C-alpha cells in the first residue's frame, strides 16, 4: 500500500482532480437547467431531458479543451525544461501524456453518447408538442413563432412533413443538428481507427483518420451557433410563470401575462477550445518550420541485418540523451513523420539515428540510401525535434537500472556514449555512481552495432580501472539447441561467443526478483531510477517490482519507474 503511494500517488491525485472537475461541472449544470426559473417553460416541453443534455455538454466543453494539450510535444518539452528545478514526480507526469489523452477521449465518447441520447428525447418531445399532442400550455408555447412581437421557444417550426421524418429533417437542416451529426461521425471514425489492433499494425490509417479531429473541432465551434436552447427573457411588465402557466389563452391580453419572450444562450464552446487550438496550431507550425530547415548528411552507414545508420547535421540542433526526433522524407511520403530515438551523444558534433527495416516507409528509406554513392548526399530530409523522454533524467539518479528490450535498446546507446564522453572529460554534472544495464533480445542480429559499442566501452573502462561503474547483463531470449551446443563447446573462452564481450550472455529471461534484490543489496541507501524501453508487458512487471522493492523510508532504497514509449 505504502509503495503504491510512493509510485502512483501523484498520478492518482491528478486523476482525482480531473474527475472531480468533471463531476462538479455535470452536477452544477444539471441543476442549473433543472431548477433555473428561466427554463421553466423549456422544461415543460422537454422534461428532464433538457438538463440531461446540457450537463454532458458542459463536461464535453471541458474535455475538448483538454484533449489537444497532451499531444503538444513541444509544449511538454518546454514544461519539462522549466520543471528542472521542481521535483522529479512532477516531470514524471508528463510521461503519461498519451494515457491522459486516451482517458479524456473516453470521457468525450461517453458524454457524447449521453448528450446525443438526451437530444433524441428532446427532439421527439419538441416534435410532439409542435404536433399539438401534449397539453394546452405546450401547444401554446410551441405555437410562438419568430415574428415582430413574439420569439419562438420550440425550435421545431415545421409541421407539414411526415411527423416521423421531422426529427431527421430537423437534424439535417439546422446548424446544431448538422454539425452534431457530422462531428459525432468524425468521432466514431477516429475511435474505431484508434483501436490498439489498428494502431499497432497500420499506423498510417490511424494517423490519417485521426486528422478528422480538424472537422471535429470546426463543427464543435459552430455547434451552438444556432442558439436553439431557449430560455425565458425578462419582459416589461414581467411574465409570472406560476400564474400564467394556467392561462395560455390570455397571454398578451391581460396585464399579468404579456407574451413570454425567449432567446437562445450565447455559444460558449469556442471560449474553451480556442486556446488549445491555437497552441496546437503553433505546434504544427513549429514542425513545418523545422521541416524547412536544411539537414546535411555527415555519413550514411549500412549496418548488418538491414539497419541503416544516418549521421546528420542541422544548424542550431541541440539534443539531450535519450531524446527522439521525427523524420520525414518527402521522396517517400509528404505527410508521414516517423519517430526515431537518437543514438548519438550530445557531446558529438552530429546526431545519428539507427533505422531498422520495420515497415513500408523504413524499407523504402533503406532502399533509397543503398543507392546513394559513397560520400554522396542522400535525399532531402525533414527533422522535427528533439523531444524529451524519461531518459533525460538518467544522470540525476545516483544509481540507474537501464532495461532495453529489442529495438528499445536504442536510447541507451545514446546514454552509454554520453557516459563515456562525460567520464573522459570528468564532467562534474554526472551524479551517477553506478549503472546496471540489462539488454534483452531474441537474437542479436539486428544489434551488432550495439555490441560493438559495448565492446569499445568495455575496453575504455578497463583501461581506466572503472570496471564496476557499468554492470551490464545480456539476455538472449530466443536461444535454441544449436546455440546451446555452440556455447557448450566454447564455454571456457574468455569472451562471449555471441557478442565477443567479456560479460557472458545469459539465456532466457531475467529473474527480476533476483536482479532487484541484488541492486538493493549493493545500494542500500540510494534512490534507483529504473528506465525501460520495451514492451508494455515488461513495463507492467517492472512497475510492480519497483513498487515491491521500494521502501517508504526515504533513507532506504527506493525504485522509481520511468517508461518510454511511442
Amino acid at each position, binding site marked *: 500500500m505504502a509503495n503504491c503511494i510512493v509510485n502512483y500517488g501523484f498520478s492518482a491525485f491528478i486523476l482525482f482532480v480531473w474527475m472531480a472537475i468533471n463531476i462538479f461541472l455535470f452536477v452544477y449544470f444539471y441543476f442549473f437547467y433543472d431548477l433555473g426559473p428561466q427554463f421553466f417553460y423549456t422544461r415543460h416541453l422537454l422534461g428532464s431531458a433538457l438538463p440531461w443534455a446540457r450537463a454532458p455538454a458542459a463536461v464535453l466543453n471541458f474535455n475538448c479543451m483538454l484533449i489537444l494539450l497532451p499531444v503538444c510535444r513541444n509544449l511538454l518539452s518546454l514544461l519539462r525544461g522549466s520543471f528542472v528545478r521542481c521535483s522529479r514526480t512532477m516531470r514524471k507526469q508528463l510521461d503519461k501524456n498519451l494515457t491522459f489523452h486516451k482517458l479524456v477521449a473516453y470521457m468525450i465518447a461517453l458524454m457524447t453518447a449521453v448528450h446525443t441520447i438526451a437530444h433524441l428525447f428532446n427532439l421527439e418531445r419538441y416534435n*410532439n408538442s409542435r404536433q399539438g399532442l401534449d397539453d394546452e400550455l405546450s401547444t401554446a408555447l410551441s405555437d410562438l413563432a419568430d415574428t415582430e412581437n413574439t420569439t419562438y421557444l420550440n425550435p421545431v417550426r415545421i409541421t407539414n412533413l411526415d411527423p416521423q421524418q421531422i426529427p431527421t429533417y430537423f437534424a439535417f437542416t439546422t446548424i446544431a443538428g448538422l454539425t452534431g451529426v457530422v462531428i459525432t*461521425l468524425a468521432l466514431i471514425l477516429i475511435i474505431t481507427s484508434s483501436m490498439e489492433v489498428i494502431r499497432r499494425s497500420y499506423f498510417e490509417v490511424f494517423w490519417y483518420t485521426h486528422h478528422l479531429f480538424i472537422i471535429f473541432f470546426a463543427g464543435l465551434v459552430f455547434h451552438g451557433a444556432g442558439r436553439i436552447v431557449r430560455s425565458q427573457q425578462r419582459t416589461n411588465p414581467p411574465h409570472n410563470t406560476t400564474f400564467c402557466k394556467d392561462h395560455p389563452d390570455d397571454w398578451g391580453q391581460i396585464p399579468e401575462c404579456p407574451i413570454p419572450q425567449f432567446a437562445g444562450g450565447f455559444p460558449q464552446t469556442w471560449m474553451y477550445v480556442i486556446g488549445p487550438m491555437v497552441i496546437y496550431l503553433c505546434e504544427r507550425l513549429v514542425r513545418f518550420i523545422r521541416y524547412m530547415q536544411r539537414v546535411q548528411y555527415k555519413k550514411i552507414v549500412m549496418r548488418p541485418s538491414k539497419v541503416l545508420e544516418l549521421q546528420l547535421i542541422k544548424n542550431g540542433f541541440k539534443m539531450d540523451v535519450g531524446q527522439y526526433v521525427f523524420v520525414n522524407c518527402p521522396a517517400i511520403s509528404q505527410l508521414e513523420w516517423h519517430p526515431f530515438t537518437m543514438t548519438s551523444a550530445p557531446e558529438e558534433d552530429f546526431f545519428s539515428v539507427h533505422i531498422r527495416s520495420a515497415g*513500408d516507409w523504413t524499407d523504402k528509406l533503406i532502399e533509397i540510401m543503398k543507392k546513394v554513392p559513397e560520400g554522396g548526399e542522400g535525399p532531402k530530409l525533414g527533422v522535427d525535434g528533439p523531444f524529451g523522454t524519461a531518459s533525460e533524467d538518467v544522470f540525476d539518479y545516483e544509481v540507474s537500472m537501464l532495461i532495453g528490450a529489442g529495438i528499445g535498446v536504442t536510447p541507451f546507446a545514446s546514454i552509454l556514449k554520453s557516459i563515456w564522453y562525460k567520464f573522459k572529460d570528468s564532467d562534474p554534472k554526472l551524479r551517477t555512481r553506478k549503472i546496471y544495464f540489462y539488454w534483452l533480445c531474441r537474437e542479436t542480429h539486428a544489434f551488432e552495432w550495439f555490441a560493438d559499442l559495448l565492446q569499445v566501452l568495455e575496453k575504455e573502462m578497463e583501461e581506466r580501472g572503472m570496471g564496476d561503474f557499468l554492470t551490464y547483463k545480456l539476455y538472449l531470449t530466443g536461444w535454441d539447441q544449436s546455440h546451446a551446443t555452440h556455447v557448450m563447446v566454447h564455454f571456457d573462452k574468455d569472451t562471449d561467443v555471441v557478442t565477443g564481450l567479456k560479460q557472458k550472455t545469459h539465456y532466457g529471461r531475467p529473474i527480476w526478483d533476483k536482479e532487484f534484490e541484488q541492486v538493493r543489496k549493493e545500494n542500500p541507501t540510494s534512490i534507483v531510477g529504473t528506465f525501460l524501453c520495451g514492451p508494455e508487458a515488461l513495463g507492467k512487471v517492472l512497475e510492480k517490482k519497483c513498487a515491491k522493492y521500494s521502501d517508504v523510508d526515504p533513507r532506504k532504497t527506493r525504485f522509481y519507474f520511468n517508461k518510454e514509449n511511442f
Partner: protein
Amino acid sequence: MGKIEWAMWANEQALASGLILLTGGIVGVAGQFRGWQFAAYAVAAGVFVCLLEYPRSKRAKGTSVERTGQYCFTVCVKTFGPLTRNYYVRAFLHAAICVPGGFMLATVLGCVCLGIASLIYLAAAIRGEHWEPILPRKETRKPVAQSIKNPPQNPPPRPPPEMRRKQAGDLEKSAYDNPMSVTDDE
C-alpha cells in the same frame, strides 16, 4: 499503405455501428418514439451485426489477436461458409441492413456508420481479402520415423583389424585430426 488489411478496420467500424444501432434502437423503443417499429428492427439488426462481427478474422500476415471469448462466435460464423467468408457478401449485407435505420432519427447514426463499414468492407473485398477463422492450433507431434523401432542388430561393417591399426610407417595416411579438442589443458 501497402500492407494494410482493410477488413480489420471495417470489422472495428462494423462492430461499433452494431452497438450504435442497438443503442439507438433501445432508445427509440424505450422512449416509445414515433416510428418505434424501426427502432425495434434496429435492436434486432444491431444484435445480429454485433454477433457477426465479434469474431476477428485471422490475419493474412502477422499475428492475430482474438477478442475475449470469441471462440464460440467463430464456430457459429464459420458454419455459414462462403456467406461469411466472402467480404462482398458482407458489404452488401451491411448496406442492406442499414437502410431501414435511416427512417428514424434515433437510428440514423447507426445507419450511416454501418454504411461506412460496408464501404470499407467493399474495399477489402476488392483487394481480395476474406474472413478466416482463428482456430486453436492442434499440436501435432512429429511422426516417429519407422527406423527408430528397429535398432540395428549388428555393428556397422568395419575393415579387418590389420587395416584399422594405425600404420606407424605411413604417417600421412594415418594422421587424424580431432574436430574437438580432446586434451584438457586448452
